[in-house]
């Protein structure tokens, strides 16, 4: 917790984006989380990604549940819409909001407790429904806000601060997401913004359900020796399989990647997603082999990061349901309530 407000003064050479804004214009209130919490770095990465994409803050809605992680939307994009909902229930609120207005960017922030314990059911169904949003789990393997109980993503054998090991199998939310229909799945680390920021940019531009499992150490309750989610452990045990860069134009700019290692995917808004494979045997666009590789590396206790899975022709819930292009929220009463005669005809069709 910091009591001094962050000075408004900024570096005189801070870059401005297409909207003429600096990164500082995307900040929120000063964080009240513990000093050193990984969640603050995730917030900083979101700020940077939104700035680099020149996203107007008022076109973003931030949604969250309950937890230290779920508090963070207050600490970024201070000029965006926000809804801090009930523990584990962010997916419902996100679904409703997205149904009502398909034109906003939706950023969901959740925790491993929020999404893998109390909210696991909600999580599974928002993935299935492919709500067009960026869903971030700040994964620290613990219930930070309630002072350090093991969460459902905590690895079996990983110990508490007092040395007691966790007895249960962990849930791998990324793997679940791939299995049940997410079209963009990545894992990253709060301490590696060089990887995280481009992934977030790609996720924000992805027109489908994009899921990011971000390992984000809890300095207060899960950063000790024996924990598999400490800064030191994650640094020593993770490796990336594939990376994503977002290039603002469609002109493929040649860069010096090893032949075959870089592939460009055209994005609907005219930008290019550049996929960089770091291992020859890994194809992030093949759901089956992706899951296979993940399983095998999980067994070995290796933390796999980067872009894990991408469906480069995604669909979202609105497409599945065939809703109108215009946001429902901006339709008038006449369009939304076509009247009792029309209802009669519909009902008759079911008889």
């Amino acid at each position, binding site marked *: 917790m910091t009591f001094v407000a962050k*000075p408004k003064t900024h570096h005189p050479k801070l870059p401005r984006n297409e909207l003429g804004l600096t990164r500082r214009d995307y900040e929120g209130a000063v964080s009240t989380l513990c000093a050193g919490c990984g969640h603050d770095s995730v917030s900083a990465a979101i700020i940077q990604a939104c700035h680099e994409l020149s996203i107007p803050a008022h076109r973003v809605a931030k949604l969250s549940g309950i937890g230290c992680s779920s508090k963070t939307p207050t600490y970024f994009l201070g000029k965006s819409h926000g809804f801090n909902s009930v523990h584990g229930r962010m997916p419902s609120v996100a679904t409703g909001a997205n149904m009502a207005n398909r034109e906003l960017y939706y950023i969901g922030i959740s925790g491993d407790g929020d999404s893998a314990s109390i909210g696991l059911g909600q999580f599974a169904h928002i993935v299935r429904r492919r709500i067009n949003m960026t869903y971030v789990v700040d994964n620290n393997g613990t219930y930070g806000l309630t002072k350090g109980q093991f969460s459902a993503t905590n690895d079996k054998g990983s110990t508490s601060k007092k040395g007691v090991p966790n007895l249960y199998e962990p849930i791998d939310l990324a793997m679940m997401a791939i299995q049940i229909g997410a079209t963009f799945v990545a894992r990253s680390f709060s301490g590696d913004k060089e990887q995280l920021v481009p992934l977030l940019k790609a996720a924000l531009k992805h027109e489908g359900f994009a899921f990011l499992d971000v390992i984000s150490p809890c*300095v207060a309750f899960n950063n000790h020796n024996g924990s598999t989610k400490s800064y030191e452990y994650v640094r020593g045990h993770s490796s990336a399989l594939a990376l994503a860069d977002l290039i603002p134009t469609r002109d493929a700019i040649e860069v010096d990647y090893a032949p075959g290692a870089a592939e460009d995917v055209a994005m609907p808004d005219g930008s290019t997603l550049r996929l960089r494979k770091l291992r020859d045997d890994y194809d992030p666009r093949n759901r089956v082999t992706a899951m296979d590789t993940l399983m095998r590396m999980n067994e070995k206790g290796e933390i796999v990061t980067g872009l894990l899975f991408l469906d480069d022709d995604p669909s979202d819930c609105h497409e599945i349901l065939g809703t109108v292009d215009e946001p429902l929220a901006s339709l008038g009463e006449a369009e939304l309530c076509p009247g009792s005669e029309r209802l009669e005809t519909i009902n008759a069709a079911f008889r």
Partner: protein
Amino acid sequence: MKPTDITDPNYFHKVVDCQWACPAHTPVPEYIRLISQERYTEAYMVNWDSNVFPGILGRTCDRPCEPACRRVRTEEKPVAICRLKRVAADHKGDIRDYLPRIPEQKNGKRIACVGAGPASLAVARDLLPMGYEVHMFERDPKGGGMMRSQIPAFRLPMDVLEEEVNLILELGVVCHFGQEITSMQALLDQGFDAVFVGTGAPRGRDLDLPGRAEADPFIHLGIDWLASVAFGHTDRIEGKVVVLGGGNTAMDCCRTSRRLGAESVQVVVRSAFEVMKASEWEKEEAIAEGIPILNNRPPKSFVVEDGKLKGMWFECVEPVRQDDGRLKYVPSGEADVFIECDHVLIAIGQDNHCPWIERDLGIEFDRWDCPVLDAETLQSGNPKVFFGGDSAFGPENIIWASAHAHKAAISIDLFCQGKDVKADRPPEGVNLISQKMGMHEWSYDSEHDPAPRYHVPHADLSRSLSNIKIEVELGFDRHLGAKEAQRCLNCDVQTVFTEKLCIECDACVDICPMDCITFTANREEEELRQHLMAPADNPAQDLYVSGDLPDTDRVMVKDEDVCLHCGLCAERCPTGAWDMQKSIINIPQVHA
């Protein structure tokens, strides 16, 4: 890059831009904090220790600290460092208890100081507490040098001058005032253990133009004329006055003329406005007093008719910027201009002049008549004779005189003890003291005020033009002083990094409002400067580079350039790898 050696006193000293730029290295942020705490007496003494004349300098200093102030780079205008010095002087209490004690028992060494300007006075102040017997010889009846004879009372009131000059004289200087020294040999023959020459740069430059001799009764050398005003020999100037020159002397001459009854006053300068030597604020004040400044007009001749000055001819030129950035003046094609005037004040510079020093005493002089000295020790070719102030390297200002004096006093002390004036000099040092008081509490006020620089109130213009003794600037009152003080960034409270504690959580990087901190792979400096959170494009400002970090093969790099010293990095660091520590730079003085 190699890890930064923060035990090198210069490293953190350079971060305190104002202190580094001050010739006497006054601990500026320290006294500004004391002003915020309304501890004016202590703030005054911090100044008195390093620059000797806080009340005088708080009104007249050349302020090399201000353009150096970090606020110029983070916001726009520097902290009003000089005016805050005056706040300390104006509001101080009784300082007697803080003054150094002068030993009853002398050390048996006798020192002669020639001249009673700021340089000699500061040497005396440094040596008296060590038991030296200091004899001061001055041609004028009173001490102060050019601070008395040149700086007009509307900038420096007499009581302020006398208070600080007398303070030193009363420490026990043996005064021989009204006595001109005419022979160095004779002085040395009196058996002094060392001689300090603080005679200034006393000769005003003249202008050898057609008509100069005939016009002589109507022409005055600026510094001589100002001296005669200061000593009360001149109290009026009639008719139209032209002042030649673009430096501070010219500004004092024109503003003084304006107050002594001149019908009109104008300043004519051979060069362009931007390159005039006068300080920005001096030019602004002259213009505000309605004095026109004519630039690019080199003087050609004086015109005298019937034994009376009629006026002067000037050429018209225009500046052309050359490849090396310097200005060259070429004729503008306009016809010469004639400016009518009854008096001309020539203020085009001063020269050193020591006819009283015999040339066979080992003291050599260069072609500008400046003595050849060792720049560090200020010792001349005659080991007993030391120089300082304007007499050393040509005309400078009061703060340089104090700075020279401290160095010369150290040399004199070493010399008198039979030590080596170079090898035995006390070294500079740095102490670092943590400012942490609690979880989020620092013993300094870490929040700065981003407000623009506060304006200082001025006396009513017509009133101040009516009387040369009315001080133009009124100074900040306590309230405004406190507000201006809050603009200071506390650049002496340093960010100190301990790499072995760092877990690379990025909290400091994320919170830093100025993007100073980066964790990255080490590289050569030039390359590193371009691989930071924000490009480090100011090579005058150092990069603080840590040793290798424990968990990755990266290093921490901090660009000192625009750090606000807000302490947020240290507040957000979970492990205490960052700490805010006050750097106290020990600038050696004789007694320290």
